[in-house]
Structure formats: structure tokens, C-alpha cells
């Protein structure tokens, strides 16, 4: 989906998505407890193997973990945030988790299904460098308009720094994120027009040794 190609949703899935949408809105007759009974099943294992670059066994392990934490088959933003916050006990990871959720939620329907989850993971962990950088760009570009403005970058940076929490060495100053953002724009914004486009981003990243190297860190996460 991130590659810009159209993904055809088969009718069953569309129905399932619609059903989720219905329950996500505050339906007057629907009691609070009923939301949990929505069950969303992913498409078959074989088609997922084709769509992603994971093997069957890896998908099995991933799904078991996914289904265990979210028995209903989809993740909503609250669950997403709570899962993510468990890895960062010292700081506040809710904003970054929110941005991540937006990036994972490719259909923009407020929930992340297993397909979305696994397709994004496949890009991050098994995709080409360009794909990975594209995904990162998509993460930063909050309104998905094709360029990163200073405000968007400031939001992202604040959310990253929030995860550090209060107890850091050296003491976290309030201007640290802002300086970091300035640093970033200085590096990335070639034509100094105040925004970073995808081309500038790709170009700068591909020239930067550090970034290239760190992108390879994800090669054997699973």
C-alpha cells in the first residue's frame, strides 16, 4: 500500500472493515462490552506470505503474539499505546505511539489489523533501503502531504524526547528538541524552503553513513 499501488479489498474484508467502523462510532444501542466481540479475521496464511517477505513460520509466530494481546483481531490506538508504553517505563511514549499508529493504520479507519501490521513490519524489516526510508518519511509526514514541515518535525521530535522521561543525563533542557529539529533541517533541507520533500530526504539519507548503517540494524530483528 505504501508503494502507491492500489490494494483491492475483497468484499468480505470490506464488510469486516465496515463492521468495525460501525462499532467504533458511538452506537446508541451498542453496549460498551459489545465492542470487544467484534472479531476480525485476517486473510489466509498463503496470501500473506505472498504479500510480505516473511516466511510461514514467522507469520505464525507473529500472529500468535498478535492474537494473544488483541483477541479481537484488531488493535485500536489505546491498546497500541499501552503495549508500546510497556517498553519505555521511564518516559511518556504515548505521542510517539500515536504517530506510529497513524503510520501503521494505512486504511485510516482507526484500527490496525493484522495485515496492516504485518505489511508494515515487512517493509521495515525486510524491505529495501528505499522502502524503509519511504516508510520513515511517511511516519514523519503527519498530514501525508508529501513534505515534512518544521511543525511536523517538531512534534515528532518532542514525542521522541518525551520517551526519555525526566531522569536523564545530562538534564533535559526544553530547547534540546528544538535544536535537534534545527539540526535536522539544516542537514536535510537542501533548497532551504522550510520543508523537506521525499527526494531531499532520500538523497540526504543515502549520503549519510550513520543512517545507512543504522538502517541495517533491522535486518535480523525477526
Amino acid at each position: 500500500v505504501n508503494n502507491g499501488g492500489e490494494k483491492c479489498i475483497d468484499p468480505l474484508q470490506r464488510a469486516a472493515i465496515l463492521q468495525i467502523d460501525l462499532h467504533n462510532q458511538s452506537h446508541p444501542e451498542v453496549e460498551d462490552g459489545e465492542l470487544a466481540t467484534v472479531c476480525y479475521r485476517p486473510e489466509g496464511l498463503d496470501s500473506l506470505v505472498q504479500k510480505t517477505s516473511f516466511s510461514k513460520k514467522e507469520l505464525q509466530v507473529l500472529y500468535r503474539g498478535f492474537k494473544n494481546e488483541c483477541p479481537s483481531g484488531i488493535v485500536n490506538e489505546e491498546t497500541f499505546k499501552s503495549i508500546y508504553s510497556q517498553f519505555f517505563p521511564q518516559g511518556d511514549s504515548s505521542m510517539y505511539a500515536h504517530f506510529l499508529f497513524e503510520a501503521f493504520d494505512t486504511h485510516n479507519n482507526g484500527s490496525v489489523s493484522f495485515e496492516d501490521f504485518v505489511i508494515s513490519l515487512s517493509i521495515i524489516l525486510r524491505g529495501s533501503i528505499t522502502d524503509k526510508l519511504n516508510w520513515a518519511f511517511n511516519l514523519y509526514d503527519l498530514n501525508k502531504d508529501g513534505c515534512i514541515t518544521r511543525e511536523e518535525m517538531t512534534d515528532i521530535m518532542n514525542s521522541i524526547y518525551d520517551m526519555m522521561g525526566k531522569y536523564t543525563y545530562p538534564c533535559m533542557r526544553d530547547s534540546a528538541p528544538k535544536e535537534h529539529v534545527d539540526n535536522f533541517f539544516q542537514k536535510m533541507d537542501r533548497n532551504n524552503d522550510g520543508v523537506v520533500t521525499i527526494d531531499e530526504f532520500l538523497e540526504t539519507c543515502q549520503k549519510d553513513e550513520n543512517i545507512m548503517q543504522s538502517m541495517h540494524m533491522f535486518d535480523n530483528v525477526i
Partner: protein
Amino acid sequence: MATGVAAWLPFARAAAIGWMPVANCPMPIAPRDNSKRQDELIILNVSGRRFQTWRTTLDRYPDTLLGSSEKDFFYNEETKEYFFDRDPDAFRSILNFYRTGKLHYPRHECISAYDEELTFFGIIPEIIGDCCYEEYKDRKRENLERLQDDQEENKDMKMPNMNFRETMWRAFENPHTSTMALVFYYVTGFFIAISVITNVVETVPCGSTANQKDMPCGERYTVAFFCMDTACVMIFTVEYLMRLFAAPSRYRFMRSVMSIIDVVAILPYYIGLVMTNNEDVSGAFVTLRVFRVFRIFKFSRHSQGLRILGYTLKSCASELGFLLFSLTMAIIIFATVMFYAEKGSSSSKFTSIPASFWYTIVTMTTLGYGDMVPKTIAGKIFGSICSLSGVLVIALPVPVIVSNFSRIYHQNQRADKRRAQKKARLARIRIAKSGSANAFLQSKHNGLLNELLELTGTEEDEHKLTKSISLLESQHHHLLHCLEKTTAHEFVDEQIFEQNCLETALQTFPSGSPSMSDHDSPVGGCCGRRGKKNNPLPNASLLTAHPIPTHQGPLQELSAIHIQSSDPLSHTASRSNLNLKTGDSSKINCKGGRITTAIISLPTPPALTPDGDGLHGPPQRRPPPPPGNPPPPSIQTTTSSAGINIVKVSAL
């Protein structure tokens, strides 16, 4: 490590892609997954009943028996399964904990048996889910009380080495501890009774003599009663003073209810002694004698039941208050109505509304003295309504209050207990959380030692030094490490953070530059070192009880690593091995394992750098620190008076 979401760790690590393009420093190397184990089914044989589960399910909680390598002790080679000689029924809920993340307490289980199972499998009971936690705690409390009752019979054993004061206090509080205490207890009880009876009999009219009318005994046998009173008051005074002397906390004793009762009981006598037989004050003096009746409350020391009654009244105060309030409302309403109804009739006793209060109260409590009766028809109608409603108003709340009181009483106790438990629970959860944060800091330290050993030591040392940390934990720590690199700040312990803040606050006065370079150097330092070698040494400041030395001297090389070790750990042996291996004079003068690496401007506190050569990282690239430092003493001794051994490693 976050428990229960180990399956999501790959996702969290993948999400770190968002940090990569904005980071200015290189990321640390990810831990190698040496044992690429496929997910397999494990068979757990618990006393013959076989349970099967995935290995990764058990790995979710690495600090329990089943999730750690401790289960290898129970592995049975022939049958290729893990055998546990425990109760299979209790094991069900334990295994479900791994599967669902929630621990439930089965109600039919005996509480102590269940506790034992939890302890055996290394699971703390605090994580029992909310659905079962109250039940668990209630049963546990009951059990504890039962055990305590058995223990209390042994409680009265005399503790050795109690001084006289403590003995006396114990004698006062528990009369059964010694014969003297018992005697004292009965004597005071007797005198309280005597005093109360005296007060009562004082007012009884004794027989009259010929020329005098009936007079109360008190006035007839003044001297006798006075002597009796004096004797009682003397006993009470002595008792009070002795209690005051023996009390462990005199101020608290003086504030307690019993002591106030004591004082109030004996004060009128002394006031009476002091005051003369003046006409004006004798009226007040007589009133004061009323307070002598408070002596009866001294019996509550002797009666458990009285104490409980007092406590329950106190705890039920709000219900009683409400009853009083509603009664007052009804009284006022009916009194007003009766007054206006009876206003017309002549020679009516209902002269005012307050005067009607008496009628209302007497009627509503169904006493009906008959000293005030309504005469008009309207008055009689309203009077009957008043008495009918009186039955309702009085009789109805009383059983409600009684049941309320009993419910509230028990509920209060349970609520207090729950509140206390909640605090303890939260404290323990907080400790576990900080434990995970500390685990990260501790593992960084281990990682640093590991790297140093990789360069200079052998495989054995490496194994000896690092405790086996699970792959999940190392991956989690790597993730936190990447975040540190991205933001160019480090996670520290709360203590160190406070100290740093204090120091930077102090630093701003003398000169601005040290603190500035302080802030700049991490960014510069970590990237500056990048070109030296591919193995990035973590510039982490770790858990240490000692503060990072203040910047007093001139600036040193910005990229000097500052290793500071304090308390000895078990690494001493391997450290010495390390030293022996390297052979040359690069002895590490660290007694222990706490390492602080900080890219800060260093002074050279000469008293604190006993080690001349410092720790050689990669021996080829790191020149020894500047000379002029005193020669290194032996390894095991503490050198500096501050107890801090500081070893400088220059990274230039």
C-alpha cells in the same frame, strides 16, 4: 523487561526506524541472536498430567521458574520433558498466567498451598488479577489471624534485657504478665468501684436524727466520705503518675483518651482542695463534683467490651448524626404546627415553640407523659399525626442504623485494608518497574565490562563476568540504547539525576563554560569518538551511589571516559584475572563493578586518581593518561579517603 508483551518486542524494535534518520550518532550494534531457536512445543509433566505449550509462551516472563533457565534443572532426558513433582490442579492456573497474562486464584484452593505453588514457580502474588485479588487477600488475612491466635499465647514471654520502665509499661498494658501487675489491676478496679459507689451513696438520705430532717449521708458522715474520697484520689493519682513515667512516648500518652479520663476524674478533688468554702464559687464547685462520675469510664481499661462499644460509636457517628438531624427536623416541624394549632385555646401549655419541643419529643418517642396535652381539635389531629409519625421516624432508622453500622464497620475495616494493600501493591509494582529500568542500567554496565573483556580478556572471563541475560532482555536494552543515542541523552537513576541537577545549579555561578561544555560534550563526544573504532563504547552513566565529581579544575579532554568504581562486587576475582592477563602496569584499580562513564569535563582530583595508568581499553589505541598521577596501589585496597577509586581512560 516488560512482561507479557515479549511477543511485541519485534514490533517495538521495528518502530525504532522512526529514530534513525533524525539521530546524529551511530546506533549501537544489535545483540546477536546466537541461538536461533525455532518455536517449539514444550511438554510439562506435572505429577503425571502433561501440559503442552509453546516455548515462547513460557519465555514471556523470564523472571519466573518456567521462563528462565531454572527449568533446565527439571528436564528429564529420557522422556524429553520437564517433570515437576507438584500439584497439577494448581499448576493449571499458573500455566494460564503465562498464556493469558492474568493470574487467577481458584477459590477452592487452600490459600497456603496456593501460596507455596506460587513461590515455587517464582511468581509474586501481587500480580493476581483484580477479579481475584480481594478474595485472595481476604483468605490470606484470615489464615494469618488464625496463625496469630496460636502465636499470641507465646507472646507473653518476657523479653530479655527490658529495663524497669519497659517492664512497668508492659505490666500496665497486659495485667497477665506478672503477679504484681495482676494485683495492681485488681486493686485499681476495686478502688474505682469503691469510688463510684461512694459517689452514689453520698446522696442517699440516711436516717434522720431527732432534731434534723433527712439529709444525705454525705453530709452526715462528712469526714468518712472525705477520707474515702481522698484515698481513692490518691490511688488514682499514683496510678496516673506511674503510667506517665512508664509510657514509651509521654506526649502520646498524655493525648490518649484514657489519660484524659484519668485527669478529669481526679481534677475536681484537687480543685476542691484549693478552693476555699467561698459562697460564690461553691455552686461551681458542686458542679465540678459531677465530673467525678467520669471515674466509671476508667473501667474501660478493664473491659474489652466497653472499648469496642466506644470505638463502634465513634465509627458510627455519621449515621447517628443523620438520625439526630432528621429527628430535629421532625421535632421543629411538629412543634411549630402544634404551637399554632393550640394558640387559640386558653390556658394552653404550648406557650412558645420551644415549649412545644418537649411535647413533640415526648410524643414522638411514644413516652407520653401527659404533662402537656392538646385541647383543640386541630391540635389533637396534629398530635395524633405526630405520634404516628414518631413511630416511623424513630423506629425505622434504628434497625437501618444498626445494620448500616454493622455493614459500615466491616466495610471500613476492609476499605482501610484495601487502601493499605494498594499502597503496598503499587510500591511493589513500582519497584518492579524501576527494577526493569535498573536492569537496563545494570546491563549497560555489564555490557561495558563485557566489551572491555572482549578486548583484553578471554572467553572465560567474559562468561564469568556477565550473568546470562536472556535474549529478549538484551534486545530490549538495545532498543533503549538506540533511543539514548538518538536523543543524545542517557537514562539515569533518580538519585544521580538529583545530584546532577544540584551540581549544575552550583556550577552556573562560578563559570558558565563548564556547564556549557557539559551539555555540548555528549553530542560532540559521542560522535567525536565515532571515527576511532567501530565498537561504540556506550557513554552511559550508570547506577552508582557516589556522585560524579564536581568540575572544579580546568577542563580536560572532552572525550575522556571517566571510570569510577565504588563498592566491591563479585567481579573482583575476574578483575584481577584480567589484570594478570594484560600483564603490564595497566592495573584496574577498581574494587568493584560500578562503572560510571561520562563524557564530561574532568578535573584531575589528584587525591582520587590513584591509578596511574588507568584502564586500557583497546591497548593499541589508547595511550595511558597523562603522567604525574601517583603509582597504582594493589587491587584490593581502598585508596582514597572518599572511598572512590577513579580511573581515567583517555579516548584520544
